[in-house]
């Protein structure tokens, strides 16, 4: 079996680790375990047996907030990865800023985005608490958690 990893966004390699383990599990072990069982086993082996429960499922929890973060600061229909290849990206493709003379218009324009962000902010906060708890109690995968921590911090800054 050969596994190749492709991703245009170049995330840190630590963020691929669970996927690599899943590949090994399902290619060598067949479908003996469900996805949820695999994730539980991964938490058990990667972090420590005491962190196997759903309460520590911070990797899945980060999916949506990171999804919102990706294009949070750019206009609808634009991907952040394309900014450097566009003309006048700051003026035309980065979100507008509040107008001193038309207060309230900005919040109205971005209301949907702000609402989405509000829901995700709580999830990021919970993820950060979970990471801190695991780190405080101790795990052999400390560096892996530090990388997830930084992802959470960057998302939180944008929110």
């Amino acid at each position, binding site marked *: 079996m050969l596994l190749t990893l492709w991703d*245009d*966004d*170049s995330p*840190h*390699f*630590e963020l691929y680790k669970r996927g690599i383990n899943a590949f090994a599990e399902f290619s060598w072990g067949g479908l003996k375990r469900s996805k949820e069982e695999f994730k539980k086993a991964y938490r058990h082996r990667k972090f420590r047996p005491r962190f196997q429960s759903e309460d520590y499922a911070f990797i899945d929890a980060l999916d949506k907030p990171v999804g919102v973060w990706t*294009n*949070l*600061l*750019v206009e609808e229909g634009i*991907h*952040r*990865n*394309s*900014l*450097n*290849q566009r003309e006048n*990206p*700051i*003026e035309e493709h*980065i*979100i507008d*800023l*509040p107008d*001193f003379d038309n*207060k*309230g*218009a*900005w*919040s109205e324009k*971005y209301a949907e*985005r*702000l609402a989405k*962000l509000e829901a995700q902010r709580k999830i990021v906060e919970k993820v950060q608490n979970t990471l801190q708890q695991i780190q405080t109690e101790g795990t052999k995968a400390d*560096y892996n958690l*530090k*990388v997830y*921590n*930084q992802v959470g*911090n*960057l998302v939180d*800054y*944008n*929110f």
Partner: protein
Amino acid sequence: METLNTFDIAQTDTQEADALETLNEMKAEFNQVRAKFEEVYSQTRILNKPEGYILDQDHHRHPANQSVNFDWQFTSELMLLQKIDNHFKTRSVLMEGTKTQME
């Protein structure tokens, strides 16, 4: 986003001034977030490409090949901060001595 929203919905001069002050601090806060991010990532990743490195010349949009340093990870953050700087600085010059200023 939250700070921009706070500024936009500010009802009084004091609320507006507070929001502007927070906006003014966003660049410094970003620099702190980025420094920590780089400290962790750089333990296992080379963040700066060697001198003379030629970035992608084709149409692909792989961000990691869009800058020789680690700017590519923060493209939209850096652009927004630049926009905020231009937007509020211009306004503060226009309104100098008449209203809350950014600097």
